[in-house]
């Protein structure tokens, strides 16, 4: 069975290697600074105790004051999972670094979030709409979007 790795454990190991990147920690989720996301993800994927080699999903939430992008990854070796979050505080052009270089599976999900939420993933090689058609006005899953 896959169990969630307690955030405490993740933080205790991360804070030595990446001082100052953790903004907030819940029970089993870790909020990191968005510009250090690729480095943290890379570490979680490769470091011996973690080995989070499988990206379950990426999703995004619109909290009005900020957008939150949520990543869940699982280690198929150790059977544990973790949730990583980043925030962007601007509505005009929210930007998060792309994880496509670390997890290939991030490709379509980042495009989906870009399509429906309007969050730009920096470094994505083919960031364009995936569900809606070219010419659709705006990003419909934003809370302030109106038909």
């Amino acid at each position: 069975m896959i169990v969630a790795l307690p955030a405490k454990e993740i933080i205790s190991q991360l804070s030595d290697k990446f001082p100052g990147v953790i903004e907030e920690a819940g029970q089993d989720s870790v909020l990191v600074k968005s510009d250090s996301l690729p480095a943290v993800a890379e570490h979680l994927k490769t470091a011996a105790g973690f080995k989070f080699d499988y990206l379950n999903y990426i999703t995004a939430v619109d909290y009005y004051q900020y957008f939150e992008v949520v990543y869940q990854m699982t280690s198929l070796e150790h059977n544990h999972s973790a949730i990583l979050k980043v925030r962007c505080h601007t509505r005009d052009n929210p930007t998060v670094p792309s994880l496509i270089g670390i997890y290939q599976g991030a490709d379509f999900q980042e495009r989906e979030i870009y399509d429906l939420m309007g969050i730009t993933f920096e470094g994505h090689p083919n960031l364009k709409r995936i569900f809606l058609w070219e010419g659709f006005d705006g990003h419909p899953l934003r809370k302030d979007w109106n038909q």
Partner: protein
Amino acid sequence: MEVSNDKEYIYSSTELDCDEGRIIEEVKAGSRESIPDPDAWLDEDLRRNIILTSVDWVLDWARRSSLWTAICYPACCGMEWMATLSPRFDASRFGMEIMRASPRQADLMITAGTLTWKMAPNVRRIYHQMPEPKWVIAMGACGISGGIFRSSYNVVPGYNKIIPVDVYVPGCPPRPEALIYGIQMLQKKINKAKAVPDLSELPNPLKKGKKV
């Protein structure tokens, strides 16, 4: 491939994407109004152009007893439609056991499911590829009005925005019995269709000013 066009594309400049977007936007812009029941406008043209004698009855019988359906199952209503086809409900009793993968061989489209704007141009194309005479049954709440997704940003509020619909079968999804009832309604409708003009309504060239 880059395309230069007077419209500014914001999200993608690939030719394929732009074309797709243009087609969908065109269909969407031209689909604000519902298309009225074909009975209201189709008959008139047919009456003027086809002159036949009393094969009327045979024609109607043949048409109503061999309703072959085109494939159009974008969502969950398709399951009930498949159940209708299966032995328990047995749509072949109505001469419609044959599903046509090619719209060229179909006379009936049962629109079993939610239609998104992205799919709309393709459904309309399938409809246009079906030869006349052809009929459409809008199956389920989504087929009639968009159903629970009506106010969504990507759902067509009813197939009659895209293609003319003859019979509406409500339900979410309709039971196979309801669909069969709808098919029977359509058969009754086809039965009433007259390919032959009513002779008493035509001017008689022998008797000036009078009808036969």
